[in-house]
């Protein structure tokens, strides 16, 4: 129990009696002693510092992003040049990540693959947050029929199985960069919208919103000036978690050959390495992009989760993938 400013003099005049540690056989259940609060659940308690893990994770994401952006300037091999090294050779001094079955440099390809993965992932999560956030704030603040209608739209979106939705969109509109981005953002919108709605309802009851209304602010103004910032800041913590999700989703699409038609992303590279023969002879072709994607998503998850605790927001209910 955090002592407030009690300043009892600390003395050892009455020395310890029999303070023995309770035998470990007695188990901890119902950790609610009267004299002291239960150990705080780190999942719940707001964290005051971000910590080493957070910065290491951010560092990795920054490194990958930097490399992806600067790929054309980096002194690395042409990712599409066939036969830059021997075919299917393992990692070696010349080709750090080895070569694929047609002798392309895997290191260079892994960096270039990050470009599409990150770009599509980033734009779609941002779009999803903007649209979903606005929907959520509108339905949480206005309630009534707007809430009902948007709730219905959200549920309809949720009812489309994720990949079937992708299939449908791509079948109809093709595989352009923006089409794929839009398709991915549609998947994020329902969850974001639900969360924004919940946060908005919590905020709309607060005094400052009531005060703004009393002072004659219009609905739109209250929404834009008072609520939106308060919703967006905690939600931004979830942006990183969401980015991890969209990167993975893009990977799944690319793996099926449904993502952006031009260029290649990590998912596409994994697909190329995932054939039975390639796995037998050159498993690294699949495993380097898998590793890159894993580390990036892990970093995003770790950093995002830390931020979520920092802002004390509930988890984004997207769940699995």
């Amino acid at each position, binding site marked *: 129990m955090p002592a407030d400013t009690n300043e009892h003099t600390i003395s050892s005049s009455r020395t310890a009696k029999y303070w023995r540690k309770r035998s470990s056989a007695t188990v901890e259940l119902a950790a609610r002693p009267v004299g002291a609060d239960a150990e705080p659940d780190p999942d719940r308690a707001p964290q005051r510092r971000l910590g080493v893990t957070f910065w290491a994770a951010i560092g990795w994401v920054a490194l990958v992003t930097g490399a992806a952006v600067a790929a054309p300037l980096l002194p690395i091999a042409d990712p599409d040049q066939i036969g830059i090294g021997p075919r299917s050779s393992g990692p070696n001094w010349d080709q750090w990540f080895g070569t694929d079955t047609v002798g392309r440099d895997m290191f260079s390809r892994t960096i270039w693959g990050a470009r599409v993965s990150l770009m599509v992932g980033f734009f779609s999560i941002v779009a999803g947050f903007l649209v979903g956030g606005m929907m959520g704030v509108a339905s949480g603040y206005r309630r009534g029929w707007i809430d009902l209608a948007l709730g219905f739209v959200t549920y*309809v979106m949720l009812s489309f199985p994720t990949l079937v939705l992708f*299939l449908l969109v791509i079948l109809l509109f093709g595989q352009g960069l923006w089409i794929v981005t839009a398709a991915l953002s549609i998947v994020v919108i329902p969850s974001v919208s639900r969360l924004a709605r919940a946060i908005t309802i919590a905020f709309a009851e607060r005094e400052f919103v009531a005060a703004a209304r009393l002072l004659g602010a219009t609905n739109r103004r209250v929404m834009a000036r008072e609520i939106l910032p308060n919703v967006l800041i905690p939600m931004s913590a979830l942006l990183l978690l969401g980015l991890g999700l969209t990167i993975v989703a893009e990977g799944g699409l690319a793996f099926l050959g449904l993502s952006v038609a031009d260029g290649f992303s990590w998912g596409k590279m994994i697909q190329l390495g995932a054939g039975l023969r390639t*796995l037998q002879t050159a498993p690294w072709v699949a495993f380097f992009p898998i590793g890159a994607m894993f580390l990036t998503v892990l970093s995003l998850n770790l950093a995002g989760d830390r931020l979520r605790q920092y802002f004390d927001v509930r988890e984004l209910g997207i769940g699995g993938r």
Partner: protein
Amino acid sequence: MTYLIRRLAFMFAVLVAVTFLAFSATNVIGDPLFNVVGFYASVDCDAVIAGEIKDVIGTVAGTGVGECERVIEAREKYHLDDPLPIRYGHWIGGMIQGDFGESYANQMPVSSILAERLPKSILLMGVSMVVALGVSIPWGVAAAYRANQRFDRASTAGAFGLLSIPGFALAIILFYFFVVRWQIFPSRYMDDNIFSRLHSLVLPAASLGLPLAVVYQRLLRTDLITTLQEDFVIMAKAKGLSDRRIMFRHVLRPSMFGMITVVGLNMSALIGGTIIIESIFSIPGFGRELYVSAIRDDITVVLAGVTVTATAFVAINTAVDLLYSYLDPRVRRAG
């Protein structure tokens, strides 16, 4: 009672919206005729038959009439000249009567495709669900039992790791080790008997189920920890009940809300996951069929897929709603 009716009405409205959206999107933006008659879809067939246009695609006059008659026939058969809502009505009416139409690609009735493919996918999803729940429930209970102690911390770290591996990547990792390297499992789907089926499904179900298990474990753990703070847990302990009994008989049930809500909402992820996993493990299930059909613009099959999966999603989430009242009798009153 009124709640149930409202719930069913909502469910029905969602289904109508989903199917109508899917139907109109495929029919307005795509050209269903193209799949049947190919190039002739864009030819003015009435004019050809009437002999007004003599030279279609560089052929001599009079040819192409047969093809054009097929176009007219197809138009009538698929009601393509009717306005969209009426066509939707025809289509959905057929659906309700079990007539899912014919595949444009191979003229097979979609219902027989469903009958052949769907059971395999359902089996896969069922086994995956068993994996997901079978792993997550004991794991969540063990983690919450001694929250923030060694096992819980280690499992949190492990959960983060697993959560960061995309399902398809996990599938490839498992495939590489268990099929390519150690050859414990077959590389193709063996459809001989139930044992060979289950044997073939171990890796696919693990690839689908484990990522879900991690999500469920996290949710369950959090809810269990909250429930463990309740007074009735102290009461149960004061009754001298064993920890195991308290965890499984008293705490688990009221802690499952969050988890089963997400189980329901995750169905679309699971259905989507089968599409990828069935491709990797060469399972001739409905997910793979859906994927192939989408690639070759086989609209009837895709539409049937959307309808079936959306119905399943809505039905499962309605079932989840009903499950709430089993889990917590306090909800029954509201019902």
